């Protein structure tokens, strides 16, 4: 993991002092509400329906056990004893008090954490695939590049007051788990014929009100030009992105308006000036960053384990857990273990303080003291010995962290929705729960197989509903909460935006609607097809007919 040096520490300390002073001036009436707004947002602080919400950055989803323990203790001391994993691999607190936030930030800084640029019209936390560094067939570990981008984007003086928020994803794995194509900038790490590392650059992807898949503006950007090229993109966006209408202010609208070719030309013209200038990355800096992400001390282990195999033969739940929640690792004798934070009856991605402490202990015991947060609102222990899997599984059961349905229907991605968020049109958590209850029969979930279900409580699409195989969007109809369903979305290398099924439904009807959709799939699927395959083959009509059929 990246660790701070004296420069990083100083920068963070300066930020805390700055925000402490800003908060003081706001409380003393020297800053207006409007003037304070972007300052607090750029420190992750929203004013929500019931209380402020603080979003803590987890840079590209990487956490140490020490950091997780700190998050647990903060949730006890400043909040109500829990925290929420967000769809940007961050952690949110729902109940901090404004006056205490500067102290909370100082505590975070003790473990090299912060809430910088987790909100506001600036460059947000860069995200990546949660299996970076351990995935089989990885082109290159994306974490050092994310760290390079983190530093470049932190307190960038020119781009702190953009037309709108700005999100960057980097992906170096064959199965894109970072939703790269629906980011303002998506970077796919590539190797050219000479074996040099570079990036395929996509711009103008995004969800929200107008979902768009990013357009390629550079097929291969040699690595040393990464930051100067990003500067050029940002400058074009900062100057020409719309500022008259916040719903048309994202870069995707600019790229659509002028076309990807014209946008590329503008970027190239701007870039020619900075290319090979002082912002050009150096081998030394890249190596410095790479040195923080070297392999832990893996043992030489066999890739089979008779005891684990025998335990799986006896313990059905464990065998399911292995099948669903355990992923191949690049190193023989190791596995990636996913903790699915989707216990029915608990808001998806919510963790109690004791669960956080517990997972921190698990990370120390089983995975070199590190873990990852996923944009699907789960946790990952990336480096678990195959032979430890049964011990880990049994430990997870104690704290309700062993739900064996990663990637199944009940692994629902869900924003906080109308229960917490002041932007929401509708609640989302109760919808997730009602669907989870309907599909509680685990055998049924296994039979349905791989599927993604995403719920957003409003158009801002924090639940990424556009790219769920099944997407659910809360809408407001004359003051009542309704839910629109879309089908066929996907966030992987073949990213697709879901298609709206038809008129929206009342909250109570949602489990039945999902049931009917699943039945159409089960009745039509051919051998080896998952939900998305069948949908792509038969199209949306059969689903429409079933869901909107008039009762005879």
């Amino acid at each position, binding site marked *: 993991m990246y660790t701070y040096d004296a420069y990083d520490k100083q920068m963070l300390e300066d930020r805390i002092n700055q925000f402490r002073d800003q908060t003081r001036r706001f409380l003393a009436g020297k800053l207006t509400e409007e003037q304070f707004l972007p300052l607090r947002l750029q420190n992750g602080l929203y004013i929500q329906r019931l209380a402020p919400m603080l979003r803590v950055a987890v840079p590209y989803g990487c956490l140490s056990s020490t950091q997780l323990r700190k998050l647990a203790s903060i949730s006890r001391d400043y909040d109500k004893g829990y925290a929420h994993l967000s769809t940007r691999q961050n952690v949110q607190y729902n109940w901090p008090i404004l006056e205490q936030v500067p102290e909370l930030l100082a505590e975070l800084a003790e473990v090299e954490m912060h809430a910088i640029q987790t909100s506001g019209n600036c460059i947000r936390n860069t995200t990546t695939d949660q299996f970076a560094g351990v995935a089989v067939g990885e082109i290159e570990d994306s974490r050092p590049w994310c760290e390079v981008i983190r530093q470049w984007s932190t*307190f960038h003086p020119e781009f702190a007051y953009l037309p709108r928020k700005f999100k960057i994803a980097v992906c170096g794995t064959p199965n894109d788990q970072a939703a790269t194509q629906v980011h303002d900038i998506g970077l796919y790490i590539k190797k050219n014929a000479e074996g040099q590392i570079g990036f395929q650059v996509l711009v103008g992807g995004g969800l929200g009100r107008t979902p768009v898949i990013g357009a390629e503006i550079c097929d291969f950007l040699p690595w040393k030009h990464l930051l100067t090229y990003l500067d050029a993109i940002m400058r074009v966006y900062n100057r020409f992105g719309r500022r008259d209408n916040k719903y048309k202010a994202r870069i995707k609208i600019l790229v659509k308006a002028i076309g990807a070719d014209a946008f590329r030309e503008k970027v190239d013209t701007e870039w020619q000036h900075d290319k090979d200038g002082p912002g050009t990355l150096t081998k030394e800096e890249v190596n410095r960053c790479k040195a923080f992400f070297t392999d832990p001390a893996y043992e030489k282990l066999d890739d089979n384990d008779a005891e684990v195999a025998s335990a799986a033969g006896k313990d059905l739940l464990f065998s399911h857990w292995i099948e669903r929640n355990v992923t191949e690792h690049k190193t023989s004798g190791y596995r990636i273990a996913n903790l699915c934070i989707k216990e029915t009856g608990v808001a998806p991605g919510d963790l109690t303080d004791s669960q956080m402490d517990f997972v921190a202990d698990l990370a120390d015991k089983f995975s070199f003291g590190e873990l990852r947060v996923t944009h699907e609102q789960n946790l990952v222990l990336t480096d678990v010995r195959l032979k430890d899997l049964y011990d880990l599984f049994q430990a997870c059961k104690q704290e309700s962290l062993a739900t064996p349905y990663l990637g199944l229907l009940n692994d629902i991605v869900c924003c906080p929705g109308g229960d917490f968020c002041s932007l929401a049109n509708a609640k989302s958590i109760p919808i997730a729960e009602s669907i989870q209850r309907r599909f509680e029969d685990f055998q049924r979930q296994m039979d349905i197989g791989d599927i993604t279900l995403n719920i957003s409580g409003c158009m801002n699409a924090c639940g990424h509903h556009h790219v769920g195989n099944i997407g659910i969007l809360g809408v407001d109809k004359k003051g009542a909460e309704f839910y629109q369903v879309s089908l066929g979305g996907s966030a992987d290398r073949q990213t697709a935006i879901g298609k709206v099924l038809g008129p929206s439904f009342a909250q109570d009807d949602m489990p039945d609607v999902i049931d009917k959709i699943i039945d159409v799939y089960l009745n039509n699927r051919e051998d080896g097809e998952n939900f998305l395959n069948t949908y792509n083959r038969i199209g949306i009509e059969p689903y429409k007919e079933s869901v909107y059929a008039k009762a005879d």
Partner: protein
Amino acid sequence: MPKLIKDGKLSKNLWHLVPKEADLAEAVAISSDHLLVHISLWREHKSELFAFNKNIGVWMDSDDDAYELANDVNDLSLIAVNFPVFKDGRSFSNAAILRLRLSFNRELRAIGDVLRDQMFYMKKCGINSFELSDTVDAEEALAAFTDFADNYQSTVEDPAPLFRRR
């Protein structure tokens, strides 16, 4: 008189801001000998403006294009970039373009909704003079320049990013 900080010190403001709507006659009728005219007036009446034997500076709004001054930077002793509201970040880029692309090396001033909490970033983008918004305490605002001891990126003020220095 609006409060001015120049090169890190409270300073006297000599320049008279001519509104965007003013035509040539209105501009030159102003008694001040330091006229800060909008880029549109400059575009139209550059030679006439010079003929009046006054100091001429140019200000541009956030939606004006700094590149338009490519051939003029040597003729101007002051260029000002306007922040119509502090959240409008376009003038940060215009400032950077004036310094980096056009090599403008005289006074570059921020005008408009210039608040204490954006001044550190403005300075990093090459702005060296700040006409403060009325509500801002000028003495307090001086502290803005030391908000951060360093920065990660290549900026106008420090072209070498931290990774070339650490």
